[in-house]
Every structure is written in structure tokens, then in C-alpha cells.
């Protein structure tokens, strides 16, 4: 770095901060879905931030999230040399140590039991998905990305996002429907 009082440097630094700060949590979520691990996710976002900083001057400022997700995806494939960046290898199941719905709204005991059963079935069904389908489902329905941002994160066309998402949901939905022993009969 040359002149420490360079106003251009200053403007770039402020631009960078403005683009990036609101997206840190989303980047961490997506990174976790892509890497399947919280620790790798943090490393990945860290590296993404450094690369984004270097690329700030080339960015037109229009869609910071999409810009960052593209850098994240490229960084991930460089870091892990993935043959298929849209193929999420392993997914950390939503946590074996998961508190039993601690975070969900309070429900009567029967509802809670039904919810627990549904959620276990859901985990099995998501587990059984093709990893490419699972990645899209997690990014849209859990990480709450738009179709377009999901496409950026995975490096696939929006149409592919939609068809994978729709098939994934239909598969999971059907799997939940035939859950063993409904509670209504006791």
C-alpha cells in the first residue's frame, strides 16, 4: 500500500465495508451448507472476504450478495478442488445434539410429540436426497436464499435451481406423508 492518506483507498475501504457487513451471516450460513462444517465455513468466509476486498474496485455495487456468493463459490472450489461445486459432499445433520425444539414456539405436549416425529422424519428424508438436490433445498428453505442467489452460490442456472428444488421438496413431502404410525390413533 502506498500513500496512507489516499482518498481513493479510503473510499474503497468504506465501500467494501458497506457491501460486506450486512452479508456476513448469510455468507456463514451458505458456507456451512456448502462445506458441511462450521469450522470450514468460517475459514471459507474469511478467505472470501480477503478476495472480495481485493476485487472491490471491479465491483459495480449492484448486487453485493450475489457478488459475494460468487466469490464464495469460487473460493470454495479453489480451497477444496471440488470437481462439482454444486455437489455438497457431506452435510452436518442439523445436529444430533439438537435441543428438542427448544427454539420452537410453545405447543401442547401432543403437538410437540407430533412435531418431534415429523422433524425426525424430515431429517431422514433430507438425508436420503441426492446431495445436489439437498444443497438447493437447504439453501432456499433453511438458509432462505432467493432462487437467483442460490444459483450464484452453486454456479448453476436458475432453472436448474428451480427444478432441483421442486423435485427435492416433492420427494421430502411424499416421504413425510407416509410416516409410520400417526399419533391420531392413540
Amino acid at each position, binding site marked *: 500500500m502506498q500513500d496512507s492518506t489516499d482518498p481513493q483507498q479510503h473510499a474503497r475501504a468504506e465501500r467494501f465495508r458497506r457491501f*460486506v457487513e450486512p452479508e456476513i451471516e448469510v455468507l456463514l*450460513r451458505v458456507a456451512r451448507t456448502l462445506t458441511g462444517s*462450521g469450522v470450514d465455513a468460517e475459514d471459507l468466509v474469511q478467505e472470501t*472476504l*480477503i478476495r472480495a476486498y481485493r476485487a472491490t474496485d471491479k465491483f459495480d455495487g449492484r448486487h453485493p450478495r450475489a457478488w459475494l456468493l460468487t466469490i464464495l463459490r469460487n473460493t470454495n472450489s479453489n480451497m477444496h478442488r471440488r470437481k462439482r461445486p454444486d455437489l455438497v459432499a457431506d452435510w452436518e445433520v442439523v445436529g444430533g445434539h439438537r435441543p428438542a425444539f427448544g*427454539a420452537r414456539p410453545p405447543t401442547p405436549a401432543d403437538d410437540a410429540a407430533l412435531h418431534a416425529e415429523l422433524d425426525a422424519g424430515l431429517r431422514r428424508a433430507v438425508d436420503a436426497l441426492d446431495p445436489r438436490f439437498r444443497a438447493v433445498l437447504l439453501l432456499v*428453505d*433453511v438458509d432462505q436464499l432467493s432462487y437467483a442467489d442460490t444459483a450464484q452460490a452453486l454456479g448453476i442456472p436458475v432453472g436448474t435451481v428451480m427444478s432441483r428444488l421442486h423435485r427435492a*421438496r416433492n420427494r421430502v413431502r411424499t416421504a*413425510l406423508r407416509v410416516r409410520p404410525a400417526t399419533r391420531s390413533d392413540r
Partner: protein
Amino acid sequence: MIATIRQMLRCHWSARRIQRYLDADPVARLAPAELRRLEEHLARCERCTAVVEEHRLLSRLLGGWTEFRAPDPRAVARLRATVDSLVADAL
């Protein structure tokens, strides 16, 4: 017979649009005419209405994972510090 086939075709047509209808994602909105046609069908068809309800339940259940998978606040703080130091180096 013809009525049954017609009904099947309507359900098939609807099934292909239900998720876009529920998501209302900016890049894949239904056209107003499609929207009207779908809502008219849902008002009359129990089977498709049940599918919509299943999608809503699935969405609620997966939405429950969102909170659970929220990033560790310490990781967020460390990454904010990374941003700070990148910016500070430039100044």
C-alpha cells in the same frame, strides 16, 4: 370420463405451479392470468389444496431449522474483525 381427464390435466397444470405460487420468488412469479387460474382451481380442488398444505407444513418445518443453524455469534464477531482489519490496513 372426459370430465375426469380434464380434471387430471388441471391438477397436473396446477401441480407444476404450486411451488412458484407459494415461493413468489422475484425471478419466477406467476403471470396474473396463471395466478387467477391456479387460485380458482385450488378453491375447487381438495387434492391440490392438500398439496399446498403439505408444502406449507414442510416450509414451516424447514424454517425451524433456520434458527437452529444460525451462525455462531463468535464466528460472526471474528469475521467482522477481519473486515475491520482489512479496512484498517487500507487507511
